[in-house]
């Protein structure tokens, strides 16, 4: 064990933890911080289930060491809804459009789309498909996810007006 203490901000709250230097950020979030909403689907950087935002950018948390997140702002699925529990437009849209079935890819999908829609709140369907090309879903055939992203984008645009 080659442990380091790590201080970072997770979902807006300062967090201190200890991890072996080889611990991935995903395992640190899941097992040390008990934020189990971030899922591991492949652990080799292809499926996208473990996607979280690090300093605002979507990353695969299986491909980052926890120790590398020292000082960073990490946002996970647990931090997506508002502090009062109000769902993010994407969460609402995923429910409305049946954008999830088993729910395992969902946190990664949502975090990927959060970043994407912040940059591009008026995307074409093809752009959404491109944006989620690094996230595998075995359940939905993606169509309902695309529909949910379109609905959320419209809601986000509405709120910005």
């Amino acid at each position, binding site marked *: 064990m080659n442990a380091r203490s790590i201080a970072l901000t997770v979902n807006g709250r300062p967090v201190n933890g200890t991890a072996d230097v080889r611990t991935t950020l995903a395992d640190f979030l899941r097992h040390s911080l008990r934020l189990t909403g971030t899922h591991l689907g492949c*652990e080799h950087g292809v499926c996208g289930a473990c996607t979280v935002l690090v300093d605002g950018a979507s990353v695969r948390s299986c491909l980052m060491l926890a120790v590398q997140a020292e000082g960073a702002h990490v946002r996970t699925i647990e931090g997506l809804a508002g502090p009062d529990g109000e769902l993010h437009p994407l969460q609402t849209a995923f429910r409305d459009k049946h954008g999830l079935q088993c729910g395992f890819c969902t946190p990664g999908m949502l975090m990927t789309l959060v970043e994407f829609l912040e940059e591009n709140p008026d995307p074409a369907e093809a752009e959404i498909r491109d944006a989620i090309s690094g996230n595998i879903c075995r359940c939905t055939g993606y169509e309902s996810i695309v529909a949910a992203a379109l609905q959320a984008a419209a809601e986000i645009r509405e709120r910005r007006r």
Partner: protein
Amino acid sequence: MKPPPFDYVRPESLETLLSTLARLENAKILAGGQSLMPMLNLRYVFPDVLVDINRVPGLAGIRLEGDRLRIGAMTRQRAIETDPLAAAHFPILPEALRLVGHRQTRNRGTIGGSLCHLDPAAELPTVALLADATVEIAREGGTRTLSAAEFILGYMTTALGQDEVLTAVSFPLWHRPHGYSFQEFARRHGDFAIASAACLLALGPDGRIERVAIAIGGVGPVPQRMPAAEAALAGTRGEPEAVARALGFCDALDAIGDFHGSADYRRSVARSVLRKALGDARDRAAAAPTGPAQ
């Protein structure tokens, strides 16, 4: 699929980094980690130490230096993809980057990491070779500069020594405007290419091809320039016969086969993507406003 045990150091200055590299054995440099981390998780590699260079200042950034675009090795791929300088002066780079992995990997992955990993199908080494880029390398007590051709030694093998680190890549700019195209065929969006073709092309005032560079990725153990094809096109107007002659040289490409494509198939796909790249680059060159060479 958890990484094996290793020690971890995170130098916070170039000097510390270089002295660290000088004293360590069996160390791996951790840049963006988008290739190294999967290899660790799969336990394909067992380094004693990871040297994390993410907090070494001065290694990231994009700037114009005379007639070159210089990009720090730790510049994230996504940053280059969206950089206005790159778009204005070297647009093939963002075009190629849009085909690199996925948004989440480009947010972490770096240009230097991709060059040092040197996957045969990776887009960035192909562009570096295409553009006669030079790489800047540092070690304790010195630096050196290599051309891309000198840097690329063989299958996933670079000229970088154990005690060295890639610090920047510098692309000589073509006179503006020029035609360019990066085309590839991959099984799915974001996959490594079966074959890719990169092309830079400039037309003279008479509409003839004044200068052309072609590089092919994904086919052989390393990216390949196609000097014979370039020569076949130079001075022509890119007539069908000239293009056909150039494409014919795809049959002579060094090719290796694997589960995703045989050597012959990769050559055939190279021909297809090169045809598209040549057409695209020529059209862009023709459409570009004419101006003095830069």
